[in-house]
């Protein structure tokens, strides 16, 4: 059959875009807190104030003439990332993994000339990647030394862990692995692999690429569901803390595992996508309803994580 029956999807608790927008984002995310997540610089500052680990901030550029300072900022680093503060969907992120004698190289070994870097930053400042084309700020961050535990699971890019946090409870998780098809990006619609992760254990459950189930990574042929995310409890804690920090009820957290610093919060998303359901092979609604039915709670971060591990595990 070409189309799924809506009643079957409903029975399986699949959340649709319209319902997400009206019943979750519209109801639980107060508009006034959006800037906390839409502006990555603000998110970073908030995270630092709340003792949440984030990637190093090398510097920011907010004026066109500030672009000239970039070489001074980055020439002593091993690598850096330039991203727009108000960008969305991974747009406008420039990753340089090697700096050698003032020459820059992308993860795939291609050289980036300084003038290309300047143009990129200039585009960022003009608001090319920001929502509504508003003028923006470029953030220069330190490169993440990603944990070798994912070696062989990701092609060229940093694997990141997306968790959906609803009223402070982590309720669904997914690991996003870039592929050759996704050009090193971690967006599922571009061909990255999504692996559903069990909230209780941090182990892989089910994996998809282009919405179709896969068992092995298309580039490295490693078995995907045998993956286990280390430091899973810390990850859950950090993500769960983002609720207090952002005061958004329905939240997507994106984190990476750094070899030295452990889980780092990359960004928060007030409108997380629905592909996580496909990666997990099940709908998210039962878990959302479970939390809604609890009413108001006064649980601490630890209590919430413990509760989630019992109730939102795929095997429960």
């Amino acid at each position: 059959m070409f189309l799924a029956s809506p009643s079957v999807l409903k029975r399986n608790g699949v959340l649709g875009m319209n319902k997400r927008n009206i019943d979750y984002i519209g109801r639980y995310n107060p508009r006034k807190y959006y800037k906390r997540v839409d502006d990555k610089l603000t998110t970073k500052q908030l995270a630092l104030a709340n003792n949440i680990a984030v990637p190093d901030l090398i510097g920011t550029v907010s004026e066109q003439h500030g672009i000239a300072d970039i070489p001074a900022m980055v020439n002593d680093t091993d690598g850096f990332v330039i991203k727009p503060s108000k960008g969305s969907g991974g747009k406008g992120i420039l990753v340089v993994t090697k700096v050698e004698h003032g020459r820059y190289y992308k993860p795939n070994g291609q050289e980036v000339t300084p003038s290309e870097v300047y143009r990129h930053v200039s585009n960022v400042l003009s608001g090319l990647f920001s929502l509504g084309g508003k003028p923006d700020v470029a953030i220069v961050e330190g490169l993440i030394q990603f944990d070798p535990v994912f070696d062989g699971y990701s092609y060229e890019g940093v694997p990141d862990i997306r968790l959906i946090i609803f009223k402070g409870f982590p309720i669904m998780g997914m690991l996003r692995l870039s592929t050759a098809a996704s050009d090193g990006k971690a967006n599922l619609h571009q061909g990255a692999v999504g692996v559903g992760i069990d909230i209780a254990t941090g182990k892989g459950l089910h994996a998809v690429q282009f919405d179709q189930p896969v068992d092995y990574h298309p580039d490295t042929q490693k078995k995907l569901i045998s993956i286990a995310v280390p430091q899973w409890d810390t990850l859950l804690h950090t993500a769960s803390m983002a609720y207090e920090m952002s005061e958004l009820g329905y939240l997507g957290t994106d984190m990476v595992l750094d070899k030295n610093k452990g889980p780092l919060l990359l960004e928060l998303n007030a409108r997380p996508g629905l592909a996580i359901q496909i990666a997990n092979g099940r709908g998210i609604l039962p878990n959302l309803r479970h939390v809604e039915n609890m009413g108001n709670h006064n649980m601490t971060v630890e209590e919430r994580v413990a509760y989630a591990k019992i109730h939102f595990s795929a095997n429960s």
Partner: protein
Amino acid sequence: MHSKKPFYILVALLFISGIAASVYRGIEHSVPFLPGKQVQSWAVDAKVSFQGTGEPAEVSFSLPEDPAYEILVENATSPGYGLTITDNAIDRRAIWSIRRAVGIQDLYYKVTLIPTGQDKLIADKTPDTPAVYKWPATEQAAAEQAIEEVWSKSATNLSFAQQLNKDLNANERSQNIELLLTSNSPNKLFIRMLHSKGIPAKEVSGLYLEDQRRRQQLSNFVEVYNDGQWHLFNAEDGSQGRPDNLLLWDRSGTSVLDVIGGVNSQVNFSMLQDTRSALATAIDVMKNDNALDFSLYQLPLEEQSLFKGILLIPIGVLMVVFLRVLIGIKTSGTFMPVLIALAFIQTTLITGLVGFLLIVSFGLMIRSYLSELNLLLISRISAVIIVVIGIIGLFTLLSYKFGLSEGLTITFFPMIILAWTIERMSILWEEEGPKEVVVQGGGSLFVATLAYLAMSATWVQHWVFNFLGIHLVILALVLLMGQYTGYRLLELKRFRPLAGEK
């Protein structure tokens, strides 16, 4: 969470009032529900002629007043005469006057009428009980006997009149009737007998409407009052009811034509049937009734045609909401497809699609050169706008040289929108590759095409301009779709892997 009841009440109110306003427009103002509808109209000329005697003359002529016909235009011509049209409680009359009338005088009255479909003669108020006719001594006994005989066989005023009309026209009339008919015309006798029983009745005159007839005369009928309504009888031939093509000219019961200061007066009618646009007719009628207040029809024509375009936008917007919320199609820029569809209306679909693709692909080529130059975003887009204008100018000139008049309409594209489209597509190309450009651009053009098809349908254009209530219905639908929490059609495909298991 607050109750959704007020919201649904609001939507229902919008919906009902929108439909009601449209239906009212259609029925009360006879605005046709379908475009291009025609109605029959009648042009009737009355020619009043008399012989002047050299004295001051005054001609009083009754004007038509029939609920079955509406007067669209009327005018009277009569060089040298003063003219007033009086409208009193009893009837409407044209009064021509002149100091001195010598020889044959011709006065004309022209009227254009359209049928209203209202063929009942409703009485505004109960007429007074008529004065009882005093029969001459020779007739009195016969009349009373004849009346009593019919009266005993009737139940209501109407059945009395029907029975009476039958007796007056029976093949073998009673002797009483025969006697009475020797000195009374059938219509007069009919009225007098009705009046004897206190039943209101009056003689009226009407005109049979037949296409291309000339020198027609009025025919006489009798109206009998019963229960709030007048009923038409013809005692001359015993018929009852209203013939289809009858126009009641004078319903006052008084004379049709009075001439003071003239002799041998007469009136002749000629008529012509015509078809005209039902919409134009409805607007003319509204103009006559001063019902145009707060209506778009009273605007100057230029503004009207502007509004015809603007009022199509809700249709395009509705289409976009539907395709995005219920179907789930992605477009680049939320309402860009509506603007493109508006341009298509000017250019027609095929020319528009070809023109759009030409401009965007040329623009992309030039944009790829501009991106080498490391320009600031604002100046790059400004450059693209100027280049787009150049491309449009070039294509217009080329199509003119090749004699392709369709190409000239390319100027209707909104240039700033095009420039932004080119910029967005170009970024998309750099970031996600040409495939995504085709997918998103194709989605936008697909939505624009559907919006165009909806907006260019003649009946849609007819409805959005002539039935403004429809916009309340669209508003209600848009609000309703804004509350839709079900799955989008394309999500049923996307989430298919989640339905197969379990």
